[in-house]
């Protein structure tokens, strides 16, 4: 009896929570006239793929595929950068002994909480002087230098759990720190790597602020920036392509979520990761 009540509550709550997502899918498939007449209902009438045709044509003179390509480059660069640079730093903090280990790690933890705005303007000025505005460099380079210290923390926590006997064994076999990292610690840290890779991908895919600041020409726009071109349009005539492109932008996240939800939820639960 009580179990049934809880279950019913969960289903009802889920319906409410998932409504905006279902609404978005429905709106992307509804002709504009029907949508405007029945704005908040799901699948009010006819179904059309016109919105998707319009979305693939893109916005601002560039096709959707350009935006998709750019987003993919930026997200892949960020994933590779974070996984490599954060795992290197994490290995040093978790497994090697050096004099400044304590203070440097404390500093890394503090930078997690630092609002990006205090470093943003000088960074922008430097990239501007290097003539790298409107390239992907300012979006990827910080990841290659492990500025997402959160993931350093995540990997340190994980690597500390790997038994030290394995390092000792590797040492006896003649491995220095580099090969111990490469052949012992790195393979055993795969769950932490996967968590880092997925969250970096999703956050970069969704990121808007830094792309808004650094990307200026339409041919370099990522998907969020492409969607931004619809923000200024107040008329509802562009609703079809706008919502269709929104759905397309969320598909990779949805797929990652379905494929890796165990990793994602476990990652949040154990580290308090900001989702």
């Amino acid at each position, binding site marked *: 009896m009580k179990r049934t009540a809880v279950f019913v509550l969960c289903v009802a709550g889920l319906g409410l929570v998932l409504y905006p997502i279902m609404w978005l899918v429905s709106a992307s498939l509804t002709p504009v006239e029907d949508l405007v007449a029945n704005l908040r209902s799901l699948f009010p009438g006819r179904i059309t793929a016109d919105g998707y045709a319009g979305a693939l044509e893109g916005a601002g003179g560039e096709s959707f595929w350009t935006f998709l390509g750019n987003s993919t480059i930026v997200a892949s660069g960020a994933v590779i950068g974070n996984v490599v640079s954060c795992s290197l730093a994490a290995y*040093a903090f978790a497994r090697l002994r050096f004099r400044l280990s304590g203070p440097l790690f404390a500093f890394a933890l503090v930078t997690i909480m630092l*609002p990006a705005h205090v470093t943003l303007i000088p960074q922008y000025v430097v990239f501007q002087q290097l003539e790298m505005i409107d390239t992907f460099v300012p979006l990827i380079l910080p990841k290659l*230098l492990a500025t997402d210290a959160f993931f350093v923390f995540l990997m340190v926590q994980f690597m500390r759990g790997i038994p030290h006997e*394995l390092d000792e064994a590797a040492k006896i076999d003649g491995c220095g720190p580099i090969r111990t990292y490469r052949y012992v610690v790195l393979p055993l840290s795969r769950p932490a790597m996967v968590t880092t890779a997925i969250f970096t991908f999703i956050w970069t895919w969704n990121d808007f602020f830094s792309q808004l600041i650094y990307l200026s020409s339409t041919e370099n726009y990522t998907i969020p920036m492409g*969607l931004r071109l619809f923000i200024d349009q107040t008329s509802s005539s562009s609703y079809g392509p706008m919502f269709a492109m929104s759905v397309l932008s969320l598909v990779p996240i949805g797929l990652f979520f379905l494929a890796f939800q165990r990793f994602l939820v476990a990652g949040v639960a154990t580290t308090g990761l900001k989702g």
Partner: protein
Amino acid sequence: MVLAERVHPAPVKPVAEGAPPRRPRNVAYLFLGPWLLGAIGLTVAPMVVSLYLSFTDYDLFNSPRWIGLDNYLKLFGDDPRYLQSVGVTLRYVAWSVPMKLVLALAVALLLNSLRGKGQAFFRSAFYAPSLLGASVGLALAWRAIFDTWVDTPDHALITIVLLSAWQFGAPMVIFLAGLQQIPRDLFDAAAVDGAGWWRRLWSITLPMLSPVLFFNLVLETIHAFQAFTQAFVVSGGRGGPADSTLFYTLYLYERGFTEFRMGYASAMAWVLLVAIALITAVLFRTSRYWVFYGDER
């Protein structure tokens, strides 16, 4: 596995007789290299520079001129839109953080009474908005669903608060993990003593969960002060109508990156940093009165 290959003597570079063995601490800085470079070049140095710029009239095109405290004085004495953005942001934090945490806790309590596959399914499903809600695409949908509210100054902010509260999934997952750490025998003992549901919630669950609650509160508060994307999209990029959704970061963006008044924007960034640090410190100070760690029981 890889280790098995290594059982056989691996080729080792012979160390010269008498030479001291290579110190591992040198290698440590090799591994730390990228991070160190980023920490100095992209964090410490820019922080120092932005602090300096906040005392100048830098505008990206002319070299900075020292103007002392002028930017800070103007912020608090002569810029009504800045004070408006502070007010909007404080109201947003004060509404969205408690709303999100209460929702997260309620759903976590609900899911905690489920077991096994059902719990895993609902946990994942309720978590999904946390990933999707940060996107421009979903914010556009939100703007259309609440189209009548978005256009009225009295309701526009509520729309963005709701969009934030909707993403309660991440703190919910953390709460649920915390709930599962509470020893069952505490509840059994309380039930024997005749404690009802509310009493158990108030006297066992909440105190035992208070470290997790504190953690979520600090994290969400720091995060809420920096909210940008959703306010940008929902308000059409300008904080409207009538500056009713002019978030702090939105105004900073406007001053710094559309007007290129970078000295002024740097001063705004430093006030934000100090405000966040102060509020975090206050939260930590109050925590001793309401956060209970296991060993004090």
